[in-house]
């Protein structure tokens, strides 16, 4: 974990209209580690991920990917996004394309991979997630858990350096959460570098190497999962975790 960080954020500030969504956020993500962002809705977790992928322009501060400053306006944003995979809460699969077409779109159109090769790779990934039978289905024929796993495969198909997961289980029925979390667990075992915003505290505690508690756009507390969940230093963190426990989610 002494390697240079894959993702680094320094003093990132983001406002929407008048309200400050991210304030002075610093973050370092080492290669092959998992960082979990926790915090109440509206605390800035999703915005942080969108900023890291340049889907939102930041107001101040800087973000580096593999040592290159990606918030420099001279940087080719499309090239940066090619190195980062994103999985959204609402899956955002393309409804007019089959599962296979969803997955091979970016490899073929962006990376110029020949169709046969892109499809072979896609089927291989689907096979690993037990979804190869669904390759020619349209997304609306799949369950939520299946759709989200396809979305993960789609993000992985471009062999990203970093995977951002934005509350990927929040839209799922409880019995489908497990299958998606299982995939994330496997990705960690494969050494994928990931940042995930999540409400699944038990899962965050299990897989995360680093946990950041966001509150009002500020990283209020950070540390290993054991430190943040086991011995939170901030009163607000304690209160947040207490509420989660009371809700039966930890």
């Amino acid at each position, binding site marked *: 974990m002494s390697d240079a960080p894959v993702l680094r954020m320094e003093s990132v500030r983001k406002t929407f209209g008048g309200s400050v969504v991210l304030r002075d956020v610093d973050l370092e993500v080492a290669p092959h580690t998992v960082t979990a962002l926790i915090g109440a809705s509206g605390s800035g977790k999703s915005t942080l991920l969108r900023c890291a992928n340049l*889907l939102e322009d930041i107001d101040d501060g800087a973000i580096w990917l593999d040592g290159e400053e990606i918030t420099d306006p001279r940087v080719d944003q499309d090239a940066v996004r090619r190195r980062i995979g*994103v999985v959204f809460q609402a899956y955002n699969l393309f*409804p007019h394309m089959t599962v296979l077409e969803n997955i091979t*779109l970016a490899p073929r159109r*962006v990376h110029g991979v020949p169709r046969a090769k892109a499809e072979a790779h896609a089927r291989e990934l689907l096979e690993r997630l037990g979804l190869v039978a669904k390759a020619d289905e349209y*997304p609306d024929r799949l369950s939520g858990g299946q759709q989200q796993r396809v979305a993960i495969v789609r993000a992985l198909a471009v062999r990203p350096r970093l995977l951002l997961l934005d509350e990927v289980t929040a839209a799922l029925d409880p019995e489908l959460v497990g299958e998606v979390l299982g995939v994330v667990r496997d990705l960690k075992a494969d050494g994928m570098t990931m940042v995930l915003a999540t409400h699944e505290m038990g899962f965050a505690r299990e897989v995360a190497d680093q946990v950041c508690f966001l509150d009002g756009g500020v990283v209020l507390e950070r540390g290993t999962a054991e430190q943040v969940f086991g011995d939170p230093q901030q009163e607000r963190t304690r209160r947040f975790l207490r509420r989660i426990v009371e809700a039966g989610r930890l």
Partner: protein
Amino acid sequence: MTVTEEQSGARDAYVPSPRRLERERYRRTRARRATAVAALSTLVTGVVLYLVVVNAPGWPRTRETFFDAHYAREAFPKVLEGLWLNVRLLLVCGAAVLVLGMLIAIARTLRGPVFFPLRALAAAYTDFFRGLPLIINLMIVVLGVPALRLQGVTVDPVLLGGTALTLTYSAYVAEVFRAGIESVHPSQRAAARSLGLTNRQALRHVVLPQAVRRQVPPLLNDLVSLQKDTGLVSIGGAIDAVRAADIIVGRSLNYTPYIVAGLVFVALTIPMTRFTDWVTARMDRRRAQGGAL
């Protein structure tokens, strides 16, 4: 749900309960009564309309000038001949309108300061041609352009009329496409961009296919409208179905040929409107099944 469906699914022999049989009997009676009421009310309405028209003080003269079998027979082949021009105009203009409308719609959705002139031009175009009455547009193009006596510019009323139709309908179709583009949820574009697709690739592979699919019913609607408006090229003297009727009317002072031409247009648009209904219904069904999005 029918009885056979349930039986095929169930292992034990299912016997419909008397309660169910009684309900089905009641529903059948109700359905039969509804059909009878609909038939009767249609008949009554038809008879009343017929009596009102036939007893109108001017009916005998109207029948003579509008519904004369002799002139109908004379006009029908000529009108059909002219209709071939309308059909060709529809095909050519329809294709041109779809292409031009799409280009204008895309121009209107382009972001970035470089595209400001293009965006403004496209907006001005749609504003202007949607506001300009088609008949005035036609007269300006069909009569005004030849008056300029430009070298190498056509004075053919068919070509000029087709151009005028294309100008107006492109504005309408552009708005249909634009509405479609804007109806695609921004998260789809975000998903495409996050995969590294450029703005153009996201538009081409993700946004436009969904936009076009969604707008098929309103597009077909505009094409039906274009189909009948091809009749307006007759004002420039092009011999289409309307003009063919016009010629006979001018000679005979009997209006029956207009009725013939009108009915022929209706007959031509009916398959298209039915097709539109069918496509819309099919898409609604698909959406209802899909549920998501």
